[in-house]
């Protein structure tokens, strides 16, 4: 097991490296001239640009620049926005709390409700709760989240005037809850629908297994059959999908943040992409890649812990 973990970690490091190299080269070869943007149209002269290039080390081979960038990352210097001048630390990392605020709530709420309704609708198949859950799942699956967000705004902010439609109250600026409700709902309900459907189907699948019949033939009550046998054996696939959604913690939902003018990383990223601000993009990509890799590592690890075959090292 320990050997397996070490091996996985090593491949992970290599993969992060490869991914960052690919993105680095790709971004460098997009032909965007950072110097031109930094100087602006007014100050732009060939000499000034050349001087700046030399100063920033942009004339060095890509590989050298790449390792310099990595070196800076290790030193804690994550780079600077070319177009807007902010450092990644102030402009991007500082925005994470805002993103985390809505994504964490959305994840928590959708996980609890999704699992619960999913389990209940597997238990009471074809009941009202099952149809309700399936209805929400179908809607959540077929409506883009930002469109759903627009509808929420139309109903609750514009027509009913109950909730604010945009912005975030900074710390100490009064109650933050009203501003949170709509964005969290817009994120949580589609997530919730998917999880419900998945939990339900996985559990129904497991319920057809022979060992569930054997468990029933022991005369144990149905709720024990469901918890101990059916749910326990559905956990591995369900946890996999749960972990995969953790990426939105880091990545945020760009579209929903845009609709609600939520000052999170999604917004920063949109602006950075529009301005071809590649240090910001680079850093964001690196983080997303690390996040994705860690999650797939976690999935394997938890899967192994849940499955005795892997856990005991076969």
């Amino acid at each position: 097991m320990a050997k397996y973990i070490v091996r996985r970690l090593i491949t992970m490091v290599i993969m992060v490296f490869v991914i960052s190299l690919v993105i680095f080269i790709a971004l460098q070869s997009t032909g965007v001239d950072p110097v031109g943007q930094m100087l602006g149209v007014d100050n732009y002269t060939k000499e000034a640009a050349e001087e700046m290039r030399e100063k920033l080390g942009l004339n060095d081979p890509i590989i050298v620049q790449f390792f310099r960038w990595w070196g800076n990352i290790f030193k804690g210097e994550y780079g600077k926005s070319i177009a807007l001048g902010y450092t990644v630390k102030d402009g991007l990392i500082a925005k994470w709390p805002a993103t985390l605020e809505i994504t964490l709530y959305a994840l928590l709420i959708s996980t609890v409700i999704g699992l619960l309704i999913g389990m209940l609708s597997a238990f009471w198949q074809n009941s009202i709760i099952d149809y309700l859950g399936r209805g929400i799942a179908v809607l959540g699956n077929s409506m883009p989240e930002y469109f759903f967000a627009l509808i929420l705004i139309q109903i609750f902010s514009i027509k009913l005037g109950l909730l604010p439609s945009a912005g975030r109250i900074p710390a100490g600026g009064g109650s933050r809850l009203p501003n949170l409700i709509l964005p969290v709902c817009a994120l949580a309900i589609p997530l919730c629908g998917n999880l419900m459907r998945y939990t339900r189907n996985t559990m129904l699948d497991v319920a057809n297994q022979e060992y569930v019949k054997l468990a029933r033939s022991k005369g144990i009550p149905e709720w024990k059959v469901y918890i101990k046998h059916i749910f326990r054996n559905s956990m591995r696939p369900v946890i996999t999908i749960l972990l995969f959604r953790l990426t939105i913690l880091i990545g945020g939902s760009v579209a929903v943040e845009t609709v609600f003018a939520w000052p999170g990383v999604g917004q920063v990223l949109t602006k950075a992409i529009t301005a071809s601000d590649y240090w910001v993009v680079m850093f964001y990509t690196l983080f997303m890649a690390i996040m994705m890799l860690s999650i797939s590592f976690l999935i394997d690890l938890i899967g192994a812990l849940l499955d005795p075959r892997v856990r005991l090292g076969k």
Partner: protein
Amino acid sequence: MAENNVTNTNTTNSIDNARKYGTKLWKKKVRKFFNNRLAVFGLLVVVIFLVLMIGAPIFTKWDPNAPNFKAKLVGPNAEHLLGTDSLGRDLFARILYGGRTSVLIAVVSSFIGSTIGTILGAIGGYFEGFIDKCLVRLQEIVSCFPQLILVLIVVAFIGPGTWNLILIFALTGWTGCFRLVRSEFIARKEETYVKVCEAFGMSNVKIMFSQILPSVLTTVIVQLTMNIPGYVMQEAGLSFLGFGVPMNTPTWGTMLNAAKASSILINNPHCWLVPGLAISLFVLAVNFFGDGLRDVMDPRQQ
């Protein structure tokens, strides 16, 4: 004598039955599909959408791109079935013509992505070993790229456009199909009929594509169908943010982009409700259709 006759007719009957069985099974599947009301509804809606979009010039007299400043932001009426946008362009016409692009992007991306995924998955699953390891790593790397970043890179390289979007979707979208086909191949490769083909000295390529692939194909087709709604939504999402198709090309996504102007968001909800509902209805219909298709063609998949 009489007894013998009975036996004979029975035997002939069963041979006939066996012959008929192929077509009977197919008929049974069609019947099963049409028993599923949601699937039939999905099929119907998809067909209506396709007919309207393909025959767009017959169903609307408006040019989707011609501005009409005399009729800006009018609500749905007899003249403009679904109203007009801020430039006075007819929304019904834009939905039909725009739908062409949206659906084209989704279908073509899904098709190319599934083809790439199937071929790579077949190779990886059949040969295993080193090639397989490389392909699995490649797949992991691809699924780690945030799609938005890829769009940026491609847009910066070759400029924004419909085909660039398809390229990105196809390049990032093959991984699901790859995993599916790969695991099917790994499982099926051990089956007797494959071993028999190997024993007869059939070439690897022939076994892969003429023996194993057909039995995996239904799964791939179902997967391909089920991927389409996702691409419709992704196109709309990217275009909504302004990174997808150029703004002057009507698609359901670029139409939704109008809602980013707060005056339209507040005062003219029909401008964004119409494309939003079009997306939702289409995606819903394809999902229902796909579910029904899967139940009939590939009941093992949940």
